């Protein structure tokens, strides 16, 4: 390993500890490769363009231990309230007692890590786009080095599920770290909605470093809705990697509320024509929260379209980061790409850093992006007040409307209203009725 380095990278010793007693099976080899990739790139610093606005020094210098306890109760009031089959990970490990494995409809298969087929193992191949430093995924490599269990879901060709599946990742304990790993492979023409909730069982401080993969085969239709509601002092870093093949449709929405520092990174690769990809979200920050949304939408095949809308509200000393890139390859003619990021600062000490980016190598495309930063329009407040609504109520109405505008992007109406409720609840407790 890296002998030249005088001090070890964060988590390097923990990994060594986790390797103890593990035999040289496929999983262990994979972890070793992950570790090598992690060591090659190192811990991300300010010089790493992708991490320019998110400083991980505090996370890197904190001392964590590996989670050993995998049982707890589901914190019902923290997750998206929906009546549907649940699959639960506690500290990154599948918990069959808390899960409704038996309620899974026909056509969907859950395979334990130990029983993966050779084909399923290929899902775990290197996630990087290339060896160049700009493609480095240090934290995802760290996940590969550390994950102890994985949730591998497969939906058979042509299966259309009417009810969503709810995947819940619970962090339980204090000063621990874990690495949830989730793979969802959706067969040709199959249809599925997945809800992904990340919550803490208690107020304990932990670090959840997740990697979630979605593979959409030709004509698959997937809704993927994520709630990041980790406990207040926790760290949440995640990479969502999506492969979208011909005529497939991927609808993503992320709502980020929890944690002291979080990063929701999405990389969607459109490799088939006629595919459509929506990557949307909202982020709500208060206290000294730091919330990072980083997205890459890569148009590789001709004639696909993407749409991205992110809206954030930041109060107190909260800091928001939005980095969004649309990359259009030379062969991806007729690409239609749209991206919009809006952020609202509600306090003197709040901060937003936004970097919407276009990188385009095909000429017959229509791509646009926009970004705005600001506060509520005084004109709008006045209009409401002129109709007899007091200032505070007017302000709440406008903030609520601002956020729901983003939430309206969610295609599944049931999930849309649930997430709307979660957002309103957060605004009420963190911005309106605090103290």
């Amino acid at each position: 390993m890296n002998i030249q380095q005088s001090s070890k990278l964060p988590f390097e010793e923990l990994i060594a500890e986790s390797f103890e007693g593990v035999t040289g099976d496929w999983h262990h080899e994979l972890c070793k490769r992950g570790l090598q990739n992690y060591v090659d790139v190192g811990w991300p610093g300010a010089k790493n363009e992708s991490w320019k606005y998110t400083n991980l020094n505090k996370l890197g210098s904190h001392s964590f231990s590996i989670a050993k306890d995998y049982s707890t109760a589901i914190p019902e009031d923290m997750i998206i309230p929906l009546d549907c089959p649940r699959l639960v990970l506690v500290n990154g490990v599948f918990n069959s007692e808390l899960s409704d494995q038996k309620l899974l409809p026909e056509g969907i298969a859950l395979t334990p890590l130990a029983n993966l087929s050779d084909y399923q193992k290929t899902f775990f191949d290197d996630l990087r786009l290339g060896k160049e430093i700009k493609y480095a995924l240090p934290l995802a490599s760290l996940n590969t080095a550390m994950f102890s269990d994985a949730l591998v879901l497969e939906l058979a060709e042509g299966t259309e599920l009417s009810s969503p599946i709810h995947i819940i990742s619970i962090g339980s304990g204090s000063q621990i770290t874990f690495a949830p790993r989730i793979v969802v492979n959706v067969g040709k023409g199959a249809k599925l909605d997945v809800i992904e909730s990340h919550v803490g069982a208690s107020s304990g401080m932990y670090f959840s470093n997740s990697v979630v993969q979605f593979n959409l085969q030709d004509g698959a239709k997937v809704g993927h809705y994520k709630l990041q509601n980790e406990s207040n002092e926790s760290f949440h870093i995640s990479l969502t990697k999506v492969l979208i093949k011909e005529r497939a449709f991927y609808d993503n929405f992320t709502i980020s509320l929890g944690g002291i520092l979080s990063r929701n990174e999405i990389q969607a690769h459109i490799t088939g024509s006629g595919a459509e990809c929506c990557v949307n979200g909202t982020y709500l920050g208060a206290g000294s929260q730091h919330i990072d949304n980083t997205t890459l939408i890569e148009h590789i095949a001709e004639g696909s379209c993407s749409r991205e809308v992110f809206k954030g509200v930041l109060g107190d000393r909260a800091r928001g980061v939005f980095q969004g890139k649309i990359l259009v390859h030379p062969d991806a003619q007729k690409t239609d790409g749209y991206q919009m990021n809006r952020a609202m600062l509600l306090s003197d000490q709040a901060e937003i850093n936004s970097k919407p980016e276009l990188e385009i190598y095909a000429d017959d495309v229509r791509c646009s992006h926009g970004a705005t930063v600001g506060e509520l329009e005084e004109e709008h407040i006045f209009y409401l007040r002129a109709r007899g609504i007091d200032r505070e109520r007017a302000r709440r109405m406008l903030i609520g409307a601002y956020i729901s505008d983003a939430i309206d992007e969610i295609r599944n109406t049931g999930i849309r209203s649930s997430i709307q409720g979660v957002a309103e609840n957060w605004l009420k407790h963190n911005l309106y009725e605090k103290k």
Partner: protein
Amino acid sequence: MSISSETVDQVKGLEADKYKYGFVTDIEMETAPKGLNEDIIRFISEKKEEPDWMLEWRLKAYRHWLTMKEPNWAKVGYKKIDYQDLYYYAAPKSMDRPKSLDEVDPELLKTYEKLGIPLKEQELLSGVVAVDAVFDSVSVATTYKAKLTEMGVIFCSISEAVREYPDLVKKYLGSVVPQSDNYFSALNCAVFTDGSFVYVPKGLRCPMELSTYFRINAENTGQFERTMIIADEGSYVSYLEGCTAPQRDENQLHAAVVELVALKDAEIKYSTVQNWYPGDENGAGGIYNFVTKRGACRGDNSKISWTQVETGSAVTWKYPSCILQGDNSVGEFYSVAITNNAQQADTGTKMIHLGKNTRSTIISKGISAGKADNTYRGLVKIMPKAEGARNFTQCDSLLIGNSCGAHTVPYIESRNPTARVEHEATTSKISEDQMFYCQQRGLSPEAAVSLIVNGFCKEVMKELPMEFAVEAQKLIGISLEGSVG
């Protein structure tokens, strides 16, 4: 055949480009020995008859430069520059600081005539322009000097300013772009040879356009000019800058620094038409244009406006910026960047909002053809005290052909809730409908592209002074020659 595939064919079939400024002036030159070290810097300083403080300032910058690394974050690729294989000083031998235009070498006057910049004091059709002509490392002539001096305007070469107005130079030199700002600016601080110096006194609206015309002529010579404009309280000045270079197979380095200071209620309008030799269609030769341009709106209600039309250079790395310190100060950046063949441009701006109610506008139009890469990179930063700050940014890219790239990389950082920042960007191509419509009215494909591109750039072109707008418009047509029809 579709427009794009046709374009590609035409680009392929394109003969060496039609850079009409590619000639070389045959004139005896005096150069410093090749390479860079403290002795060379002493040599330059001595040639310029500089005071000691200037030499010390240069040496300090040089020592700092030695500790720095060449930046690599821009989206450009080029052959590594061997800084020891360059000449850092080249001047026409006949040049012993002519006192008047009559004393300037006729060969030089001919050169400028050929470039369309007659160094004669004559009324032009649309107004009077005073010109400072910089040839390689030295300023060869400044016109209308007497008239300007009468009004209290200082317009001279920076070498002269160092000797004649040391207090002004000392006060402002490096105050906007510090010596250690970046690799190329540090290098410039150490070896800058000439450039223009402008001071506009309090309350004066400078009645003529001031203009500098830069010409690189000598082989293997870096041009490191340094320009400084100070607009005192309540004054106004409009400054134009043009540049060309001979057609050579090797790359040439141009690392300039421009510092602008606008005091209370002052306004500076800075326009550039950059037409350095872009290299041939395969990317051989051409200028590396690595330039640091920055203006400080020091006083309340001051304004700095950058307008640039960038058609030349093999590689461009340039971000004319505004530091909006004074309350209600205004920064503007209007840019057209055209890249064709193997050209690469990474250009944009920085707007740093510090004062209350500061406003900035960014309009960028990028056109990419051939195998070129064109990147807009810009930063809008709102600091905590910039109450009520406003920014509007619009970046549009146009692609002609399928082997080029257009990229938009804006950074938006806000730390004040009352600030409002808006950014819009689009990327598109010239539609076949538009082409056919123009052709149906009798325009050749080439004329149609030129017309459509000029329309695309209109918002920027209208910011240029009349004298430049016509030239710039023609230049756009020439730069895109061979990209269509």
